[in-house]
């Protein structure tokens, strides 16, 4: 039988997150803006310039080995913070059982950041979703298209200045208008039995 049922080896808990944050700070002192601790989880806020290098370091360093990208998402601090956007990387090491969160600042004037698909292939769809929802452009992404919304959608819904019920509440959706017009055109061919 192919599958072996085992008492799998669970490694002891790895480095505490504050120590990892110190390591990043030691390696990239210019890049780290702030380190925040909340409920035993540590976020390292970094500038966007060398985020690819930081991620490469976290992934490749034998002591850190962050092999699992748990999540990648955007956040919008419209009118609350400058710079406006953030791209959040939740990283976990299956090998060593430690985790860290990297939050990268992205300004509104030029919402773009380097893509990490070359490190974690699974980031592909997360980055497409982030582009779809926040309009953040990922440089070096192999296939940056909208993913959850139709290709001709206007606006980026998870931005805070996008209204909850959609921007054109008084108008019918254009796809629906199209169908109605078409049905009017084709009315003469209706089967009258």
């Amino acid at each position, binding site marked *: *039988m*192919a*599958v*072996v*049922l*085992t*008492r*799998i*080896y*669970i490694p002891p808990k790895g480095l505490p997150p504050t120590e990892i944050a110190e390591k990043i700070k030691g390696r990239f002192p210019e890049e780290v803006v702030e380190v*925040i601790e*909340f*409920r035993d*989880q540590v*976020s390292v806020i970094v500038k966007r310039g060398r985020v690819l290098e930081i991620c490469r370091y976290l992934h490749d360093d034998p002591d850190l080995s962050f*092999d*699992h*990208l*748990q*999540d990648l*998402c955007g*956040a*919008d601090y419209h009118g*609350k913070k400058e710079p406006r956007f953030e791209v*959040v990387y*939740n990283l976990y090491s*299956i090998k060593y*059982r430690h985790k860290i*969160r990297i939050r990268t600042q992205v300004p509104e004037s030029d919402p773009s950041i380097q893509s990490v698909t070359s490190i*974690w*292939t*699974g*980031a*592909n*769809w*997360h980055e497409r*979703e982030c582009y779809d*929802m926040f309009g953040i452009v990922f440089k070096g992404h192999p296939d940056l298209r909208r*993913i*959850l*919304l*139709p290709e001709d959608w206007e606006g980026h*819904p*998870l931005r805070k200045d996008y209204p*909850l019920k959609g921007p054109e509440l008084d108008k019918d959706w254009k796809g629906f208008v199209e169908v109605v017009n078409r049905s009017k055109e084709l009315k003469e061919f209706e089967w009258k039995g």
Partner: protein
Amino acid sequence: MELVEKIFETRELNVNMGPQHPATHGVLRLVLDIDGETIVKVTPYVGYLHRGIEKLGESMSYFQALPLTDRMDYVSAMANNIGYCIAVERLFGIEVPERAKFIRTIVGEMARIANHLLWLATHALDIGAMTVFLYCFREREWILELFEMICGARLTVTYPRIGGVKNDVPAEFLDSLWKFTEEFPTRIPEYETLIDQNRIWLKRTKGIGVISAEEAVNWGLTGPTLRGSGVPYDIRKHMPYDAYDKVDFEVPIGTEGDTYDRYRCRMMEMRQSNNIIRQCIEKLPPGPIMAETPNFTLQPKDKMMPITHPTKEHAFYIIEKACKGCGMCLRACPAKAIFGEKKQPHKIKQDLCLGCATCYVTCKFKALTIVPGGKGFPEEKLAELAVPPDKVPEDIKKAQEYLVKHFEFIKRGPKVPQGDIYIATEVPKGELGFYFISDGSGKPYRMRVRAPSFVHAGVLPRLCVGHLVADVIANIGTIDIVLGECDR
């Protein structure tokens, strides 16, 4: 020969599959580029079921957003609820009572069994084994009936709550669940005899959709889809939540990383889940089921019983002289039990009244009053008994105040400390993560859902290219996706 080649020239064909296709498990659309029978390129299109749950979650308080999570992975809604509740509890910083933890573990594992049964049923049906489908649905029905027993719902349960669970489990439930756990291990071999040694099944699953351990981790796969490749990553072991650190269970992992290994992993997992449920029932401690933190969790409903509970049988009555006919109560009534013209005194139709007290809260002219114990009395007797609202007994009024507070609490939410938190739980499909950014109000500033199905759907092109068209079906089945969760 040249002539033959000219006539029978081969071209790559572009085939559209879905979004309405029975084998795509929902509304997944794939565009396949095929060369003969071989897949050259696969482009998945998702988003047909996008409802903007993340955006909706930002507009609601933490309590109100809970039912939305049912609608993501509707096959194992219970596990999604638990994931959401745990994330919010960690954000609030509250501790759940021991009994609630065990109950959650029980229902979470029941959801895992139900999910794997549905997965096996549809996966086998896609590959061509019809009988398994019928067998699996027989047991799944049993679990859904058990869910019905504890919360009244079968699919969209919303049974776990922030701070615990909604109500305690009845003794009959534990009895029938125990019976189920005794019976279920004998049912698994029934499915296995149907397909385990079946030559068609083996041919269609062995060596199909192979992904190595390193690559699987790099793609972000989780759950049984990852463990089939031999990576021992299970959040229940790595970051134990609920009662998983108090029960003894094993995690099956595969070796080859193909469809067959992932199938074996899930079959083993069902046995383990069964074990966990049995242990939890044995160890189930007595005690409260809801955290007693009035600032963060909903209080028990007994406190507002005097008004809301139907057995207490209060009646609501409009005093004709005081009623100005403003229509506020008429609009607010959820049962549409109030009738009347504008600027004329309104009337409550007693047989339609639910006794929810919404009208009593909204009335500004002190026209609406409570007649204690007046349910079922004729209209004339109520008129006789009715007193102005300020002469209603004190305990009933207190319960009334409590009810109003309760409404406001749900609508505004608690005061949450500022910060951000990411909490992952092991749902049947993989790692379900919730990432909250709190700005100090009762609503999440940002609510992000890391859906396992979304990540798994992204790996389809990697699994399919180079295989045959028929293997696409097997690959969609093996990664176990639900499009409601993928599109959110």
